[in-house]
C-alpha cells in the first residue's frame, strides 16, 4: 500500500535543525497567522464606494446613531483577511471528513451555480404569487421527491434545520393529540443513544422526556419500550438507522406497539442517507421524520449551517403541518396557503414556525442533487455509503474495539470505543493524533451509550484509495495509543494551533473584542 507517494516520512527533526527556528512574523511559509479584524481595520476605511446621497431633510426623528466602532478594510485587505483565515480550516474539499452522524459528503458545485441563478436568488419571499411560479414549482417538485422516496403522505418544507424539523414533527404530534382530546399525553420516550436535539426539542415543545434503554447489541429494547407505553405517552422519538450505526430491526413492531397504545412515532432522519432509495420509512409505520438536506442531499454545511429540515408526515399528522405551504392547482399553477386562507384550506395547522418559506437556497441545491442522481443514483448513494462504512469497520476491528461488531453489518457509520488503549490514553488523543495525519477526526464521545465513542462516517463520496489512507492513519494512531506513545498526549503538533484551553474559555468568557476604552477601565 503506497500511502505517501512523495516518499518523505517526517520521522526525525530536520537534519539542519531549522525546525525550531523562530520566524520574525510567526508564520511558517504557507501557514500564516492572521490578526483580528479589530487589530488591522479602522472605522474610516471602507471597501465599498457609494454614489452621493440626495440632499433631503432627515425623517429619523432626531434619533441619530452614536458610536458604532465597526472597523472596515479595503477590498484587497478584506479578500486577504478571509482567504488567510480560510486556510486555517479543515474541509471536505481537503480530505476525508468522517464526522459520524454529520454526513460530510462532497458538495457538488453545480448546486452552487443553480442556487445563484437570479430567478431563484433574487426573489423576495413576499412577491405576488404570479411572479414566483418557478420558485413554488421547485418547492413542490422537491416535496414530491421527498414524499415518494420516503413513502409518506405529506411534507412540511418550512423547517430551517434538523432540530427545527424535529420541533415541527413534535408540534404536529401535539396538535394531533389536542385534536383528539388527548392533551394529557405529555411524555415522549427517547432512546439513550439519541442525538441531544431529541430531548431538547421535546422539552422545547413542552414535553417531559423519559429514556428507554438499549439492548446489548445496540438497538432499542422493544420489551422495555412496550412496558412503558400507556395513556400518558405522546409518542417515541427514534433514530433509524440509529446512532450506533445500526438499523432498528424492530422498527415496524415499535411503530405498531406505539400506535396500539395511542401514541405517534417520530423518526430522527439524520441518517436517512444510509437507506435512501432502498427503504421507505413510510413502510415502517413512521408518522413524522425530518430530512437534513445538508446531510442526505449534499447541501453545504458552511462551517455550521445553514441547514434545512423538511419533515415528511403520515396521513394522520399531515393535516397539522405548518404554514405556509405550496399547493398545486388543477391548471398546473401553484398557490401558497398562508394565514389569509388557512381556515378554508388547512384548518388543522399548528401555525407558522418561521417568517417565510423555509430554506429556498437549500431547496434549489437539494433538487439539483436529486435530479443529478435520479432514483437509480440515490440507491447507489446509500449502497456505497454503507459499503464504505463496513469496510472501515472490518479493516479496523482488530485494532479498535468495535462494541457492536457482532450485531450485524453497520449502516453508513462504524462505531468504535477506546477500550484497550494504554492507561491514560483515550479517544481525544486518537482524535488529535488524526489531525497530525491530515484528517478531520471522527465524531467523538457520541453516542453516550459507548465509552469513549468514536463514530466514523466515510460517506459515499470517498474513493477506495482515500479510505485506505485514512484506515492506515487511524490504525497507526490507535497503535500508538495502545503502546502509550507520550507524544500523542500533546497532539496535534502540526496544526495551526495546539490543544486549546477550553476550561479557561468557559471560566471567564471573552465573547467579543471590547472597545479600546473598555480595556482601559
Amino acid at each position, binding site marked *: 500500500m503506497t500511502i505517501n507517494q512523495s516518499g518523505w516520512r517526517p520521522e526525525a527533526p530536520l537534519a539542519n535543525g531549522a525546525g525550531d527556528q523562530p520566524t520574525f512574523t510567526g508564520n511558517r511559509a504557507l501557514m500564516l497567522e492572521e490578526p483580528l479584524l479589530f487589530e488591522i481595520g479602522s472605522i474610516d476605511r471602507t471597501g465599498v464606494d457609494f454614489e452621493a446621497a440626495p440632499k433631503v431633510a432627515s425623517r429619523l426623528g432626531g434619533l441619530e446613531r452614536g458610536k458604532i466602532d465597526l472597523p472596515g478594510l479595503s477590498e484587497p485587505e478584506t479578500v486577504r483577511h478571509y482567504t488567510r483565515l480560510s486556510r486555517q480550516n479543515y474541509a471536505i474539499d481537503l480530505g476525508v471528513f468522517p464526522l459520524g452522524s454529520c454526513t460530510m459528503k462532497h458538495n457538488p458545485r453545480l448546486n452552487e451555480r443553480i442556487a445563484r441563478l437570479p430567478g431563484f436568488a433574487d426573489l423576495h419571499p413576499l412577491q405576488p404569487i404570479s411572479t414566483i411560479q418557478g420558485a413554488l414549482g421547485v418547492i413542490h417538485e422537491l416535496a414530491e421527491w421527498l414524499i415518494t422516496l420516503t413513502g409518506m403522505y405529506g411534507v412540511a418544507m418550512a423547517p430551517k434545520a434538523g432540530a427545527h424539523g424535529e420541533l415541527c414533527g413534535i408540534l404536529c404530534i401535539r396538535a394531533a393529540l389536542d385534536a383528539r382530546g388527548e392533551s394529557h399525553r405529555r411524555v415522549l420516550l427517547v432512546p439513550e443513544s439519541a442525538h441531544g436535539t431529541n430531548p431538547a426539542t421535546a422539552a422545547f415543545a413542552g414535553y417531559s422526556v423519559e429514556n428507554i434503554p438499549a439492548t446489548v447489541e445496540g438497538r432499542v429494547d422493544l420489551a422495555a419500550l412496550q412496558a412503558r407505553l400507556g395513556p400518558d405517552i405522546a409518542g417515541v422519538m427514534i433514530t433509524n438507522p440509529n446512532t450506533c450505526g445500526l438499523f432498528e430491526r424492530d422498527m415496524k413492531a415499535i411503530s405498531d406497539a406505539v400506535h396500539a397504545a395511542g401514541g405517534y412515532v417520530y423518526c430522527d432522519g439524520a441518517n436517512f442517507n444510509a437507506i435512501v432509495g432502498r427503504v421507505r420509512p413510510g413502510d415502517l409505520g413512521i408518522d413524522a421524520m425530518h430530512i437534513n438536506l445538508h446531510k442526505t442531499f449534499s447541501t453545504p454545511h458552511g462551517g455550521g449551517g445553514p441547514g434545512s429540515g423538511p419533515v415528511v408526515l403520515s396521513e394522520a399528522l399531515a393535516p397539522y403541518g405548518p404554514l405556509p405551504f405550496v399547493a398545486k392547482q388543477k391548471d398546473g399553477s401553484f398557490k401558497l396557503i398562508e394565514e389569509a386562507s388557512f381556515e378554508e384550506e388547512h384548518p388543522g395547522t399548528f401555525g*407558522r414556525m418561521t417568517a417565510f418559506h423555509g430554506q429556498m437556497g437549500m431547496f434549489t441545491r437539494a433538487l439539483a442533487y436529486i435530479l443529478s442522481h435520479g432514483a437509480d443514483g440515490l440507491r447507489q448513494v446509500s449502497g456505497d455509503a454503507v459499503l464504505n462504512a463496513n469496510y472501515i469497520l472490518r479493516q479496523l476491528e482488530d485494532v479498535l474495539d468495535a462494541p457492536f461488531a457482532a450485531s450485524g453489518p453497520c449502516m453508513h457509520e462504524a462505531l468504535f470505543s477506546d477500550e484497550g488503549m494504554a492507561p491514560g490514553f483515550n479517544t481525544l488523543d486518537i482524535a488529535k493524533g488524526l489531525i497530525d495525519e491530515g484528517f478531520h477526526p471522527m465524531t467523538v464521545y457520541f453516542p453516550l451509550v459507548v465509552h469513549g465513542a468514536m463514530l466514523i462516517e466515510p460517506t459515499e*463520496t470517498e474513493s477506495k484509495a482515500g479510505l485506505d489512507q485514512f484506515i492506515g492513519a487511524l490504525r497507526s494512531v490507535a497503535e500508538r495509543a495502545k503502546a502509550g506513545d507520550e507524544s500523542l498526549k500533546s497532539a496535534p503538533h502540526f496544526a495551526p494551533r495546539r490543544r486549546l484551553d477550553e476550561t479557561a474559555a468557559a471560566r471567564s468568557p471573552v465573547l467579543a473584542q471590547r472597545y479600546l476604552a473598555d480595556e482601559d477601565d
Partner: protein
Amino acid sequence: MRYLPLAEDDRRAILDAIGVASVDDLFVDVPAAARLSGPVDGLPMHMTEMAVERKMGALAKRNLAAGDAAFFIGAGAYRHHVPSSVDHLIQRGEFLTAYTPYQPEIAQGTLQVLFEFQTQVARLYGCDVANASMYDGSTACWEAIGMARRITRRTRAILSAGLHPHYVSVCQTMAKFTGDTLDIALPTLEKGRPGDDMARLLAAIDDQTSCVVVQNPNIMGHVADLSELAEACHAKGALLIVVVTEPVALGAIKSPGEMGADIVVGEGQSIGVGLQFGGPYLGLFATRDKYVRQMPGRLCGQTVDADGKRGFVLTLSTREQHIRREKATSNICTNSGLCALAFSIHMTLLGEKGLRELAAINHAKAVAAAEVLSKVPGVELLNDTFFNEFTLKLSKRSRSLVRNLADKNVLAGVALGRLYRDGDGRENGLIVAVTETTTEEHVATLASALREALA
C-alpha cells in the same frame, strides 16, 4: 455517476474484504418486506450536469427576479447590493465545506470569523455580547421571549402591534405549547405613527410581565425612541426585547442597546445574504453580559493553546442540547454559519464609514421617493418618521392593486392585506421599501403606475 468515486472493481474489492457477496447483504437487518429490490417506483433516473442546469434554469425563468422589476418590497427582507467579493469568499471550500468547529485546532478560520461576527453584531446592536447566529429573525424573536421567561421566571410577554406579523405568528405557535401568555394587538394606520402602540405597551406592563417585544423601525417603517419604554420595563422587573428586521437602519438611528434594550434580536439578511426567497437567512441575537448564560445558540470564545498562542473555541456549551439534552436553553444545533460569514465579510467591507454612508443613501432615497409618491392623487404618506421604508394609505384596496402592478413588472411593495385581516383601513395600506438599489426611474415608474391604477 459523477459524484461517486467507487468503480465496480473497487466495490468488488471492498465486498471481498468485508466478506459478503453483495451490497444487499449489508442490508439484512432491514426486514425483507421493507427492502426495495430496485429504484423507487415513479421517479426519474439520473441526469447529466447539463440537463439539470437546463431544467432548473427553465424553472428559474418562470420567476420575476427583483432585478428585472421596479422593486419596492421590504417588510422583513430587503434588497441590497452585495459586493462581489462576499460571494467569492464564502465559496472558498475551506469555509463552504467545513462544519461546526468541533475540533478547534483545525477550525480556527471559522472560529475567528465567528468571534469577529459576534463582536460586529454586538457593536451594531449596542450590546455587550452576541451569539454565533440563529436560523432567522423570527425564530430568534421567539428564543428571546423564552430567554426572558428563564431570567424573570414570568410567562407574560407583551408584543407590540408593530412587530412583524409573521414573527407574531411564530411566537403564537410556540406559546401554545410552552404555556406563555402573549398580549398582542393588530396595528392601526394612525397618521403620523402607523403601527405604533407605545401607550398600550406602557399601560400593559405589570409585575407578571416577562418582557415587552417591540420592533424598530416597526413593520410600517415608523421609527421610535424606546428609552422610556425601557425604563418602564425595568421599573417592573421586565425585560425589553427589541427586534430589528433592517440592520442597515442602525447605521443611521440610535441602537437598541443605547435605548436600554436587554435583548436585541433580528434579521441579518440585509447585510451580505441577499433575498433568496426567504431563506437561508440569518438570525442575530445579542444581550447584556449578565444574561449570557441564559442565551441560546452557539458561542465562540477566546482562549490560548498549549503554546500560549491566542485561539478560539466554542464555549459555554453546558447551555446546549448536546450536553444538557432536555435541560438545554434551546434545541438549536446547526445555525446559519455561512450566512454569518457573508454578513461579517460585507460588514468588514463597509466598516463604520461605509455602513453610515449606506444608511444615509437608503434614508435619503426613501425620503425622496416618499415625496414623489405622496403627490400621486389617492396616495397618503402615513409616517412622520421612517428609515428606508414607509406606509402609504391608498384610495383603493392595495392587495389587488399590487397583483395588477406585478403584471407590468412593478413590484410595488407589500399590501397589508397580505399580512393582516381587513379592518381599521388596513386593506388600503401599502408598505414601500427603498434602498440604494432603487433608482429615480423606478420611483417614477411606480408613481405613474399608481397614478393610473388609482385614477
